[in-house]
């Protein structure tokens, strides 16, 4: 437990000190939100009683969570593995699962300021106005349900080498983001794409947020899909670890 805490503090400190990484990660979704806000249809109703500018706030939170998790997990884990640091940690008494747990937790800590900043910009420039309790609930929900993205980031770091990790991270960002309905309201997509969106985690992350804005009950299916992704990615990370042990690589 002591080891876990020591390594956790070290990792979080390291992440918070890399301000270039943080600025880009936090800045990107905010910039996107501002760009989309200039859209003439920003006031149009796109989901129940939710306008496009409100929708965008949730979708950019989801996009930001995805970017933060893929970069904090994927790129950094892949580089640490290539550089030999991950292997050095494996010959300390710290169990292998601690590394994964700490990486996922550290990614989650980056997601929180991303969500907060997008919300702040939406409230300030996007004219989004909510009750205090709704803000708190929405923030907690969007943050905590970002766990599958953090797991995805760590899995990408385990599965992909440094030479491929940047294209893979960028590809995942736009494929999951676009087809998950973050740049275009899902209701405006062609029928086939609307179906496709339902298998992607961002659609369900987004939907939970929209349901809060629209004052609806939260759909059980969204929780189930997000939990399923988390579980499956956890299993994939474990599997990669096993494969490496029997091969003797990394």
């Amino acid at each position, binding site marked *: 437990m002591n080891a876990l805490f020591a390594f956790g503090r070290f990792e979080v400190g390291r992440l918070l000190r890399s301000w270039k990484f943080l600025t880009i990660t936090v800045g990107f979704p905010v910039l996107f939100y501002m760009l989309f806000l200039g859209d003439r249809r920003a006031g149009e109703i796109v989901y129940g009683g939710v306008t496009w500018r409100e929708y965008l706030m949730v979708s950019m939170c989801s996009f930001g969570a995805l970017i933060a998790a893929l970069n904090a997990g994927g790129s950094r884990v892949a580089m640490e593995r290539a550089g030999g640091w991950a*292997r050095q940690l494996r010959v300390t008494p710290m169990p292998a699962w601690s590394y994964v747990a700490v990486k996922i937790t550290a990614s989650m800590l980056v997601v929180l300021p991303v969500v907060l900043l997008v919300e702040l910009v939406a409230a300030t420039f996007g004219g989004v106005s909510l009750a205090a309790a709704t803000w708190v609930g929405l923030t907690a929900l969007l943050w905590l349900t970002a766990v599958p993205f953090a797991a995805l980031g760590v899995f990408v770091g385990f599965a992909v080498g440094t030479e491929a990790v940047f294209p893979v991270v960028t590809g995942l960002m736009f494929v999951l983001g676009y087809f998950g309905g973050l740049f275009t309201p899902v209701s405006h997509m062609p029928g086939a794409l609307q179906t496709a969106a339902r298998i992607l985690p961002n659609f369900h992350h987004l939907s939970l947020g929209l349901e809060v804005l629209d004052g609806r009950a939260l759909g059980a299916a969204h929780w189930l899909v997000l939990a399923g992704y988390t579980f499956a990615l956890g299993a994939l990370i474990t599997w990669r670890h096993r494969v490496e042990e029997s091969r003797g690589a990394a």
Partner: protein
Amino acid sequence: MCAQQPALCFSGVTHHYGEHRALDDLHLTVERGQTLALLGPNGAGKSTTISVLLGLIRLGAGHVEVLGLPPKEAVASGRVGAMLQNGSGTGLPPGVRVNDVLCMVRRLYSRPAPLDLVVERAAITTLLHRRTDHLSGGQAQRVRFALAIAGDPDVVFLDEPTSAMDVEARRAFWQMIRALGDEGRTTVFATHHLAEADQVADRVVVLHHGRVVADGPGATLKAAVASRQVRFVSQHPELAVLNSLEGVTDVQVRGTTVTLDSFDADASIRALVRLNVEFKDVEVTGAGLEEAFLALTSDPPPAADETGP
């Protein structure tokens, strides 16, 4: 199985990387407090041996114990330290100070070595406030050595530890390794710096194609093969005559310079005199471990596969 409780014990260990057989029925026992050099060409199985001892590889066949425990448990107990080869990077996390990494790694162990001692041992006092991504190759190696001994380990594994160091740094480094042995720690290091294996280790194990081809003190290994070189100048060297000399195992003639490998240099020189071979400028040298090593590993491999990590 391992009878008493030595520091390390390998029994019938075989490991494959795909088709390539990296370890081939390896048997090896290392007593506590011994400093052992694993010597061999690339692909001989040195790194694989160390990876197996650290529990980084799950075994196909065989039995391994470190301090009487399965390797993973030995590592988890905090009694093992290691400095591994580090691929493309420094083996250190970027963007932090050396001090931060060292303090964090010490906290991973239940009874770490005193910080001052580790810093002094690894000679990194001046590096503590440097960022890990601003270190030279040799400096990074020293920091990684500090990490390897941070947990006050009973057994230390070092995989080609001096590969990024210059001659001076190397000499200093080997003094640190000797100090580990003097404190009763078991030390295993892989190297292809033959002279270093000879000078630093109590025992040298030569690996080739995943098998032990020689095992003993460096001096014994040298004695095991043609141990002297006799060199002289002769105006008309006759190969047939030279080959027939007592003790001679190999003859090389370059122009007028003759080099004889001999297991009995005195007898060879007496034979030269007796047979009236004209010669001058005689020089007798002991063959280094390098020659011994080449002689031991020059056999063709049983399985024709040279590739592998």
